[in-house]
C-alpha cells in the first residue's frame, strides 16, 4: 500500500500502463518535460522517452484527431487536455469522430483513446477553467465518461480506461487533486467502468453524487445524521457517468424511497435530469417524495468573488435533505 493523493494516483496509473503496454503514448500541452501543469505526467518522459510522452503544440483538435489515427493503428493514446474548457477546440473530434469511429467502420477500426482533463470549480480560477460539462460527453453515443473522486478510484478507473476498447473521457476534479490522501494498492488493478460505489449505506434517503461534490455530500450527511439519529442516508459515488450504474441507484431508491442527486454542473439537461427521469420510469411506485436535485445554476460560472453562488454547498445539500425527509404527499 502507498498513500497517494489524486494527482499522484493519475501519475502512478500512467506509469504502470506505460510499463505494461508499449503502445501507450501520453501527450498534450506541457505534459512532457514539465510533467503537466498539475504534474500528472511528471517523470514519464524521463523514464519512457520523448517519443512516448511528449509536449504537443497547442492544437487540441489535432490531439484528438491524431489520437484517433494512432488508435486505429493499434496504439493506446492517452491525451491530456490542460483544462476541460480550454480544450473546446477538441470537441469536433471528440463528439464528431472519436465516438463514431467504431460504428462508422462497422467495428473494423475501434478507437480506444483515453482523454484526461481537469474539470470543475472551487479553484479560484480564471474564466473557462471551472466548467463541468460532463453531460455534453455523456450525451454523445460511443463515449464512456468517468469522474473519479478518490485516489483508489482514480488509479483503478484510469487503468480500466486504458485497457478498454472504447474511447473514454476521464474528467478529474481539479479541486480534489491534492485535497486528501488515501491508501492505494501498489501495482496494477482496475476499478470496473460503470459501477458506482457506496460511501455510506442507509435506509431513508439516497444521495447520488460524484466528483468534487462527494466531499460536500459526506460532510452534509455526517452533520444531518448526527442531529437526526433516527435517519440513515445512503450516499453513492457514481464514479462512471456513462454508462451509469442504474442497477445500484434503482435498488437503493427502492429501499429508501427518496432520491437527491448532487452535482456542480448546471441544472438543466444534466446528469441529474437523466437519473431522476430513469428513477421515475422504473421506481415511481416506491417513491415517498419527488426526487430532487442540488446542482449548479444555469449560469456562466462566476469568477472567484461570485463562485460560491454557483456551487452546491453543504448548506444547500442539507436544505434539500430536510425537504426530502420531511416531505409529505
Amino acid at each position, binding site marked *: 500500500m502507498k498513500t497517494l493523493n489524486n494527482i499522484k494516483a493519475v501519475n502512478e496509473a500512467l506509469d504502470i500502463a506505460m510499463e505494461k503496454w508499449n503502445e501507450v503514448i501520453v501527450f498534450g500541452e506541457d505534459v512532457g518535460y514539465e510533467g503537466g501543469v498539475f504534474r500528472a505526467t511528471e517523470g514519464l518522459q524521463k523514464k519512457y522517452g520523448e517519443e512516448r510522452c511528449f509536449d504537443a503544440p497547442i492544437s487540441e483538435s489535432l490531439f*484528438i484527431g491524431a489520437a484517433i*489515427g494512432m488508435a486505429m493503428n493499434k496504439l493506446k*493514446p492517452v491525451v491530456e487536455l490542460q483544462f476541460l474548457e480550454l480544450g473546446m477546440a477538441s470537441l469536433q473530434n471528440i463528439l464528431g469522430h472519436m465516438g463514431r469511429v467504431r460504428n462508422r467502420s462497422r467495428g473494423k477500426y475501434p478507437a480506444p483513446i483515453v482523454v484526461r482533463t481537469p474539470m470543475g470549480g472551487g479553484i479560484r480560477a480564471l474564466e473557462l477553467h471551472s466548467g463541468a460539462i460532463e453531460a455534453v460527453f455523456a450525451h454523445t453515443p460511443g463515449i464512456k465518461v468517468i469522474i473519479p473522486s478518490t485516489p483508489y478510484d482514480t488509479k483503478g478507473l484510469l487503468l480500466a480506461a486504458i485497457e478498454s476498447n472504447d474511447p473514454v473521457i476521464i474528467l478529474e476534479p481539479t479541486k480534489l487533486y491534492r485535497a486528501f490522501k488515501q491508501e492505494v494498492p501498489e501495482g496494477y488493478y482496475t476499478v470496473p467502468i460503470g459501477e458506482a460505489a457506496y460511501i455510506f449505506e442507509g435506509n431513508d434517503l439516497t444521495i447520488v453524487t460524484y466528483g468534487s461534490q462527494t466531499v460536500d455530500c459526506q460532510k452534509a450527511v455526517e452533520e444531518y445524521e448526527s442531529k437526526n439519529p433516527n435517519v440513515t442516508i445512503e450516499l453513492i459515488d457514481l464514479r462512471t457517468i456513462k454508462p451509469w450504474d442504474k442497477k445500484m441507484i434503482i435498488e437503493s431508491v427502492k429501499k429508501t424511497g427518496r432520491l437527491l442527486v448532487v452535482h456542480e454542473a448546471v441544472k438543466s439537461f444534466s446528469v441529474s435530469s437523466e437519473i431522476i427521469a430513469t428513477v421515475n420510469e422504473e421506481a415511481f411506485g416506491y417513491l415517498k417524495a419527488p426526487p430532487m436535485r442540488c446542482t449548479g445554476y444555469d449560469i456562466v460560472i462566476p469568477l472567484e468573488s461570485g463562485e460560491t453562488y454557483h456551487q452546491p454547498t453543504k448548506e444547500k445539500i442539507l436544505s434539500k435533505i430536510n425537504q426530502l425527509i420531511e416531505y409529505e404527499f
Partner: protein
Amino acid sequence: MQFIGKYDPLKNEKIQILDNQGNIINNNIEFDISDETLIEAYKIMNLSRKQDEFQNIVQRQGRLLSFLSSSGQEACEVAYAMSMEKGVDWLSPGYRNNAAWLASGIPVRNIMLYWTGNEFGGQSPEGINVLPPNIIIGSQYSQAAGLAFGEKYLNKKGVVLTTTGDGGMSEGEVYESMNFAQLHNLPVIFICENNKWAISTPYSKSTKSLNIAVKAIASGTPSLIVDGNDFLACYAVIQECLKFCREGNGPVFIEFDTYRLGAHSSSDNPDVYRPKDEFEKAKLDDPLTRMKNYLVEKGIWSKKKQEALDSEQFEFLKTEFEWAEKNKDYPVSDVFDYIYDQKPDFLVEQLAEAKTFYPDNENKFGGDK
C-alpha cells in the same frame, strides 16, 4: 529528387507533362510507367466517371440517397491511390474520393452500398487500409497524422495519404496536422485536390493565398503544385513523394490543380452559382479526354476499345447497383452493435425495445454476417 525542392510554390511553379490535348510537353521528367499500368489507370478513371453518371441517374430516380461526384478529379485520385501499396499504405479520405476508392481496391458495390445508406459500405475490405469517408472536412488530416505516428512508432513501412479540397484547406486542423507531422517527421502525404469550389463558395472567396501549396510552407512541410488533370504528372510526383516519405524525410504536401466538373453533391445544382464560361473552359481540361488522346496517340487505345469499355462498365455498374439495392437494408441490431465494444445494459434494453417495433429485418444483409 526531380520535384521536391525544385518546383517552387512561391513562384507558382506547376508540374505538368501533358497538355490538355494529351501531348507531351515536358520531356525532362523521368519516370517509369508501363503500358499496362496506363491502361489500368485509364480504365479506373473511366469507371469512376461512368459510376458518377450512373449514380446521378439512379439518384434522380430516388434509388440512391446522395453522393459526392469525383468527375474532373479522376487523374490525380487514380494516380495517388493506385500507387499505394495495398495493406501497407493508408488512405484517410474526405467524402469526394470515388476514383481514389476504386483505385485503392474498394469494390464498387461497397461504395454504392454506402450511398444507399448502409454503413457497411464504408468498411474497407481485409487488406485495404482505407478509412470510411470523412464527412466533417479537415479531420482526415489529423487522423492521417496519427496513423503516420503509428507507422513510425511501430517501425512499419506504410505511408499515409490524406486528401481534402480547397474548401477543407480553410480548416485550422489542416495546419495543426501538418505542424504535428513535421514536428514528428511522419510519413504522410497531405493532398489538396483544389477543385476551385467549396459547395457554392469559389476559390477566390476561400483564400487570398498565392496558391494552396504555400500554406504548407509555414509548417516547414515541402510542397508542390501539380496539374491535377494530367495523369502522368500526378503519377510521377506521387512516386517521388512516396519514396520521400518512405525514406524517412517526413511529410510532404501536394496541391493538385483540378476542377470539379460535377455538382458538390447530388442534391445541389452548380448552374445556380457557377459561371457558365468558367465551366465550359474547364471542360477543355477534362483529364479523361487528355489521357485518352495520349493513349490513342501512343497506339494503345482506340475508339473501338473505348466503346467496348463503356458498355462493359455500364453493365458492370448496373449489376453492382442491383446488388447494393438488394442488400441495403440491415437488421435493427446492426445500429446498436458497433457503438461500443460490448453493449452496455442501456443499449441492451434499448435494442430489446427497438426489436419489438422492427421484428422482420433479421435476415437482411447487415454487413459481414
